């Protein structure tokens, strides 16, 4: 098929469009003005530099959690544990960020590395259990999420603060805060993390598509038997895949800890970034470039949604509905493809 390339772009685009249309119908049906609603949404996401800054800030962790989920998917694993890996990554980054006095050139990378390692460790456990005992990674990662939440809270309380609820702010030398972005985006919380996230997307693409190790990881993801037959170490690859996936998630946590918040406080519940990462990955077709776009879409919808209640009177929940509909339409791309082919036939 010649139009394959075109379709690859067209389908998600149509899915988003259809999601918006369906969202408009919901708004109309419940007595809201869809033009005002979407106007507010778009304004709240891209209305001026401040909003753009906020959108990019929100996009940053989404890119990384999306990559984490996608990396596991590409290697045949379903990592629902991105949330927990993110939380421990956040903790580790802040821990390093407050504990040392080092030059920025060492301190910041060290904090990021700590986050990646913590996330990797959280991925290692389900990876090992899957590889050696064939325990389903979905259950283990769900359980690991809760453990991450409670353990992190306990550490914040007892180690990172004096029986308090939050850590000290990370040292300037470990911070991702950007005076430059602050200035050009009217004090948005946008930080340098976006560069790390985009670089991570490149890393994932490069690792999977260009390296020898990536070849192995993909092969194991598709067919463990054939991989073993071909001399690959299936167990080691499963573990490695979970570790790398966890590392991406850990770095996502660092974005929050070193960038957006600059510290960590005890969490009453999950951040949602990890779970949203599943949707980001899937809408992005589990591919690095797609994830950049779908994370941006997610970031824009989430940040833009905040504007809807105040200027259009539309509850923010509507955005969740729209997101869900977009996911449905992306998932049902078969339907869109079918519609497209009907339409093409009709045009001929």
């Amino acid at each position, binding site marked *: 098929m010649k139009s394959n390339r075109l379709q690859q772009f067209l389908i998600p685009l149509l899915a988003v469009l259809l999601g918006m249309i369906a969202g408009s119908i919901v708004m109309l049906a419940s007595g809201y003005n869809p033009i005002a609603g979407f106007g507010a949404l778009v304004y709240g996401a891209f209305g001026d530099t401040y909003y753009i800054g906020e959108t990019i800030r929100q996009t940053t962790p989404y890119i990384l959690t999306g990559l984490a989920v996608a990396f596991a998917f590409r290697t045949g694993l379903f990592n629902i544990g991105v949330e927990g890996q993110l939380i421990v990554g956040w903790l580790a980054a802040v821990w390093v960020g407050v504990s040392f006095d080092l030059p920025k050139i060492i301190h910041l990378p060290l904090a990021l590395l700590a986050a990646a390692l913590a996330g990797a460790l959280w991925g290692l456990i389900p990876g090992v259990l899957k590889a050696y005992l064939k325990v389903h990674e979905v259950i283990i990662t769900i359980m690991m999420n809760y453990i991450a939440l409670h353990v992190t809270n306990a550490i914040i309380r007892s180690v990172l603060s004096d029986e308090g609820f939050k850590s000290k702010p990370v040292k300037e030398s470990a911070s991702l805060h950007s005076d430059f972005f602050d200035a050009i985006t009217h004090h948005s919380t946008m930080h340098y993390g976006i560069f790390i996230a985009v670089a991570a997307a490149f890393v994932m693409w490069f690792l999977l598509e*260009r*390296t*020898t*190790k*990536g*070849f*192995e990881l*993909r*092969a194991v993801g*598709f*067919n463990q*038997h*054939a*991989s*073993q*037959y*071909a*001399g*690959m*170490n299936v167990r080691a690859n499963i573990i490695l895949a979970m570790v790398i996936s966890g590392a991406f998630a850990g770095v996502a946590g660092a974005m929050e800890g070193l960038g957006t918040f600059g510290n960590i406080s005890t969490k009453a519940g999950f951040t949602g970034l990890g779970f949203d990462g599943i949707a980001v990955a899937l809408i992005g077709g589990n591919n690095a470039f797609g994830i950049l776009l779908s994370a941006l879409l997610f970031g824009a919808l989430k940040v833009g949604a905040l504007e809807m209640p105040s200027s259009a009177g539309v509850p923010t929940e509507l955005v969740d509905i729209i997101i869900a509909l977009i996911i449905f339409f992306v998932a049902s791309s078969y339907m869109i493809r079918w519609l497209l082919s009907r339409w093409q036939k009709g045009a001929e």
Partner: protein
Amino acid sequence: MEYVIEMLNIRKVFGTFVANDNITLQVKKGEIHALLGENGAGKSTLMNVLFGLYQPDGGEIRVKGKPVRITDPNVANDLGIGMVHQHFMLVDTFTVTENIILGSEPTRAGTIDMKRAEREVRELSERYGLAVDPTAKIADISVGMQQRVEILKTLYRGADILIFDEPTAVLTPQEIRELMQIMRTLVREGKSIILITHKLKEIMEVCDRVTVIRRGKGIATLNVAETNPNELAALMVGREVQFTTAKKPAEPGKPVLEIKDLVVKDARGIKAVNGLNLTVHAGEIVGIAGVDGNGQTELIEAITGLIKAESGTIRLNGRDITNLPPRKIIEAGVGHIPQDRHKHGLVLDFPIGENMVLQTYYQPPYSKRGLLNFQAIYEKARQLIREFDVRTPDEYTKARALSGGNQQKAIIGREVDRDPDLLIAAQPTRGLDVGAIEFIHKRLIEQRDRGKAVLLVSFELDEVMNVSDRIAVIYEGNIVAIVDPKETTEQELGLLMAGSKRKEAGVS
């Protein structure tokens, strides 16, 4: 003349590909009608149309003279058409009985009446001489018995027109003989049979008439009594085919593979290979003959490192390779054409080009400093595709999209190209047409002539006898005899495979 089935000018198109191009097939009541054609000729497609799995894009179907529209398998069932599929349609985790009654379960008070079902299955199996254990799990029974279950499924539904799609591809010679017997019984009982097979001998043996198709077109319908294998092969492939591959006498050299007292346990912990000894020399093809389930799979998997050996040693060129990781064994010089090409042979979702370096991707020139060199990979792929006549649109096409024969050619190309000292070929021609078989046999002999050791495992006695220089008969995990193919007969081999002792011919 009365036709029970008439498929007139059937046309079936997949996308732009015409799989069936105005094919006509007429089956008489009470006959065994063969359908013959190369891989991908469109046989299965035609039968799936008859069974209601596909809707034809043109043509007409008549059953017992009446025009019908077979919209789904239920309709086919109601018309008395039953099909034994090329790839078994059995639920592994179910019992024999459950598989047979699925979809028309006898019930009592809403519950499946399993007692009654088992009784009915037992009665049916006795009546047609189809020995099965109604309570056994499909996963635990032999392929032959699975096939009998497939047949019982159709009979249970009262089918009187049976379609067999390549039923013998996976059977041992004994099982094939049994199946022939069953088919004759069925015909005697008034059933009609359509048989798809690549094995011309079988057609000659049991069929009444044969329809040949090539590239989706009907070529001819002949009375079997009035034709011969050579004519059929020529009709089917469009050229002359040699059945026995010509070869020079073997010139065995030093031992390449030496197996001593090998013991291997299967997945259930039973000793599947039990103190086996075998030597394969450079420049010879050793064929392993045996009934499925006598340890062939475990033997191969132990040699290639896929499962652990309990005890004993395996040496390659004098070096102990017992229980080394698969990669080390591959690097030591073992090539392996696996029995299950989908499970072990290919990553179906990878491009065929990348499948060509499945074992060597990490070595130069395919990998440099940890990075893949796609140029080198695809160059190699193009070379192999050319050399081994792999029919694929291009080297970027997913392996999944290739036909079975072409997938197999790709695997063989890959394994041969690595130039291993020992080439293990497990069922290398299963399900392939005569043309493809000829090609593959030539390649194996070529390897031998280049001084390599070849270990061939096959359930096809023809193949073992034609290709091997020595035949080792495996029975219950042991080599019970080694015979010279020129000095033995199918009968003798059959007996040995069934476990009857033989004194002469030193067991090495």
